[in-house]
């Protein structure tokens, strides 16, 4: 499988995005456990994110890395488990990456602006 250059590249991107995501997920989990006490409110969330360049950068990078990582993972599942042909799996995962990226960045913008 690894003799295909595209496979080697996707393998590498999946690891790089994993390394980027690991600390972000750790912070995200910590924030969830801390913020969820007593229930989430919009005021609480927006109070943190509105106008905050730090959180916007944090979640912006998070969305980029997660969209890429999730799409490559989905492609692997489609090829290896669903036995889908590679070009079809590539089309679907590119579509999923685009949807995650657009919806994700829209969400980041929604809680920043």
């Amino acid at each position, binding site marked *: 499988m690894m003799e295909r250059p595209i496979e080697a590249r996707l393998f590498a991107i999946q*690891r790089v995005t*994993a*390394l980027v*995501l*690991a600390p972000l*997920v*750790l912070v*995200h*989990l910590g924030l*969830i*456990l801390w913020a*969820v*006490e007593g*229930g*989430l*409110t*919009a*005021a609480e*969330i*927006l109070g943190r994110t509105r106008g905050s360049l730090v959180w916007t950068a944090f979640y912006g990078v998070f969305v980029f890395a*997660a969209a890429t990582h*999730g*799409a490559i*993972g*989905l492609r*692997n*599942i489609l090829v290896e488990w669903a036995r889908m042909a590679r070009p079809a799996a590539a089309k679907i995962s590119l579509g*999923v990456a685009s*949807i*995650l990226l657009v*919806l*994700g960045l*829209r*969400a980041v*913008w*929604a*809680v920043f*602006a």
Partner: protein
Amino acid sequence: MRARRGIGFWAAILHRLSGLALVLFLPMHFLLLATALRGEAALDGWLRLADMPLVKVAEWGLVVLLSLHLLLGLRLLILEFLPWSGLRHGWIWGGVAASLALGAVFIGQVA
């Protein structure tokens, strides 16, 4: 060649399924947050869904799955990139235990 269905096999299945669940969840997560575009009250309206016990259970599941995906993924990165020997099966059990502990903290916070 057939993989022996040991703990490493199940860790790989769990890693993959947790990743798939997270990808399927993300669009809903993003759409909910984007309701803030229509104002704070709109977002609050959707956040009230989280008061439903079934939604709390789903959130608990997502927290545990995110933690599991992270810790099982870190094990893979260690196996692939660090010169340590062994298959780090302890990481799998540690990851499961840590994720369940995290889930317990989550329940304590929302209960």
